[in-house]
C-alpha cells in the first residue's frame, strides 16, 4: 500500500497539518513518499526529509509552482500517482483546491476529510457538518484522500532520514494567473493548530472590544478565533472564523466568549479536548457542550481570567 502525500508548507517547513496527514498515512500502510512543490523550496524538502516514517521526498521546484496553483500542481501528482495505491493530503485550503483535480483526472472518487481509518479501503468521514459520520469504502485502484488534520496526532518533525529526489517540474499550464495576496499578520500561534483557542462571538460587541479576546488568548499562549456572527458583524476578518463555514479546530482548550453556540459554530470546535464557555445568557446552547460553563458578564470575567493568569 504505497502512499504519496502532498506536502502543504509555508515556504520553509511542512505544516503541522501535513505531519498529521503522515500520521494518518501510517495507519493505512507504507512506504510513504512526500511531494514538495513550490519555488525556491529546497529547505522545505530538506526539513521534510527529517520527518520520521517518510521514505522519499520528491521536490518539484519551479517558478510556476510558487503559488501552488491547482492547474500546475495537479498534473505532477497525477503523473506520480499512477505508481501508488493512495494519494493523500491534509485538508488544507491548498489541498482542497488541488486534490479533486487529481482524482477526476485519475477517474477515481475522492474521499474528503477522513477522521478515521477503518482499513486500507474503508474510512470514516463527517457529513452534515459533523452531525453524522459516514463509513465509506473505496474500490478505486488509487485512493485519493484528504485528511482532517485535527483527527490525527502529528508525527514528529525530525528524527527521520529520507532521501530528497528532484522531480521534473513540468510546464506552466497557462491557465490561472496569480495576481497577489493580502495576508493578515498574526502574532500568536496559527489558529488551525494552536494548543489553546480563545474565540469571541457577537456578545463581544465591537471590533475594539476584540482586544479583550486577544489579551486573554495571549495570556493563555493561544490563538484568536471568532464565530461567524462576529465575522459578519465586522469585528474580525473571515480567516478567524471557527465553524462549518470557517476553520475546524480541536485544541486542548477552547474558550468560547460571548458565543451562543449555533450548530454551525459547534461543528468547528466540538472535538476540542476541554471547552470553556463564558456567556451571560444561561440558556445559550454553548453551555450544553461546555465542560466548564461560566454564566457571567464577559467583560468582567475575561479581565478577571486574564489577571488570574498573570504571573
Amino acid at each position: 500500500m504505497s502512499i504519496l502525500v502532498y506536502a502543504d508548507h509555508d515556504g520553509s517547513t511542512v505544516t503541522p497539518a501535513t505531519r498529521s496527514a503522515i500520521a494518518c498515512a501510517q495507519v493505512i500502510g507504507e512506504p510513504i513518499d512526500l511531494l514538495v512543490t513550490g519555488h525556491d523550496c529546497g529547505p522545505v524538502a530538506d526539513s521534510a526529509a527529517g520527518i520520521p516514517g517518510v521514505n522519499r521526498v520528491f521536490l518539484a521546484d519551479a517558478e510556476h509552482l510558487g503559488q501552488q496553483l491547482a492547474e500546475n500542481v495537479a498534473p505532477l501528482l497525477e503523473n506520480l500517482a499512477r505508481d501508488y495505491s493512495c494519494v493523500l493530503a491534509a485538508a488544507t485550503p491548498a489541498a482542497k483546491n488541488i486534490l479533486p483535480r487529481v482524482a477526476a483526472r485519475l477517474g477515481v472518487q475522492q474521499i474528503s476529510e477522513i477522521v478515521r481509518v477503518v482499513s486500507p479501503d474503508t474510512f470514516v468521514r463527517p457529513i452534515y457538518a459533523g452531525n453524522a459520520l459516514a463509513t465509506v469504502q473505496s474500490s478505486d485502484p488509487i485512493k485519493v484522500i484528504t485528511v482532517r488534520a485535527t483527527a490525527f496526532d502529528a508525527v514528529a518533525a525530525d528524527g527521520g532520514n529520507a532521501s530528497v529526489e528532484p522531480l521534473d517540474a513540468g510546464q506552466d499550464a497557462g491557465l490561472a494567473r496569480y495576481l497577489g495576496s493580502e495576508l493578515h499578520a498574526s502574532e500568536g500561534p496559527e489558529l488551525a493548530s494552536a494548543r489553546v483557542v480563545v474565540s469571541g462571538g457577537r456578545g463581544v460587541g465591537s471590533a475594539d472590544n476584540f482586544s479583550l479576546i486577544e489579551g486573554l488568548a495571549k495570556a493563555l499562549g493561544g490563538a484568536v478565533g471568532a464565530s461567524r456572527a462576529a465575522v459578519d458583524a465586522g469585528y474580525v476578518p473571515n480567516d478567524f472564523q471557527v465553524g462549518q463555514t470557517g476553520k475546524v479546530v480541536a485544541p486542548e482548550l477552547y474558550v468560547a466568549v460571548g458565543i451562543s453556540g449555533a450548530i454551525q459554530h459547534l461543528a468547528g470546535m466540538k472535538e476540542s479536548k476541554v471547552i470553556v464557555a463564558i456567556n451571560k445568557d444561561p440558556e445559550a446552547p454553548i453551555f450544553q457542550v461546555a465542560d466548564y460553563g461560566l454564566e457571567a458578564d464577559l467583560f468582567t470575567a475575561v479581565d478577571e481570567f486574564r489577571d488570574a493568569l498573570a504571573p
Partner: protein
Amino acid sequence: MKIVVPVKRVIDAYVKVRVKSDGSGVDTENVKMALNPFDEIALEAAMRLKESGQASEVVAVTAGPEAAQQQLRTALAMGADRALHIDTPADIQPLAVARLLVAICDREQPDLVLMGKQAIDDDANQVGQMLAALQGWAQGTFISALEPGEGEVLVTREVDSGHERLALPLPAVVTVDLRLNEPRYPKLPDIMKAKKKPIEGLTPEELAVDISTGLSVLKVEEPPARVGGARVNSVAELVEKLQQEAKVI
C-alpha cells in the same frame, strides 16, 4: 457571457438532521429541503452579472430525483432564464456529477460555470475542481469577490490567513464562499413567473454518462455525544478547575 449554475437539493441548513436507526443514511422524509446555500450565492452572483449587462444568459442545472425540480423553480424565481434537470438518484457521488456537468458544458458551451464550493449535506467540496480538471479549464475556488475582465474573470479566493487574487481565462469554473454576497429572496411575482419558465428533462443515458463510482457508503451513524453542561460559579473556580482537574493551563 453565458453562465451555467449547477445547484443541489439538500436538507435545509436550519433543520437538525436525524440519522436513520438502521444506519442507512440521514432521514430526508418529511424534512424541509432547500437549495444548497452556497449555490444560492452562486446564483445571486450570476444574476448580478446578468443585471449589470455582463452576462447574457443564466442556466441552472441539477442532478437529482424529480423532487429536485422544486429547487430549480427556486433558481428560476431568483432569475435564471431556464433550467436543466438530470434525473438521477439523490446520492450520486461528486465524480459522477462532474462527469454529467462535462456533458452539460458540451451542450451549453458556457463561458463560466459558477457554483457553490460545497454542498452542506456530504461536505465533499469536489465537483467544481473535478469539472475544471476534466474540461482542462482554470478554476477559482472559495471565492469572496468576482469581477469580469477582458476574456477572463478576476477572483479573490479565501485562503489560510487571508486572500489571494487570480485572473482566470474563460471558460472557467468558479466556486463561491459564503461572503461573496447576500442572496435575494424571490418575490411573489418572480415565483409566479418562474412557473412558466422551461425545465428540460435529461437522463444520464441521454448524456452518455456512467454515473457509477468506486465509492460506497457502508453506514451512517450519530457522532459520539459530547457530555457537557457542567457549570462553575466564578472565574477563580474556573481557573482552579482548568489547572487542577483538566490540567490544560
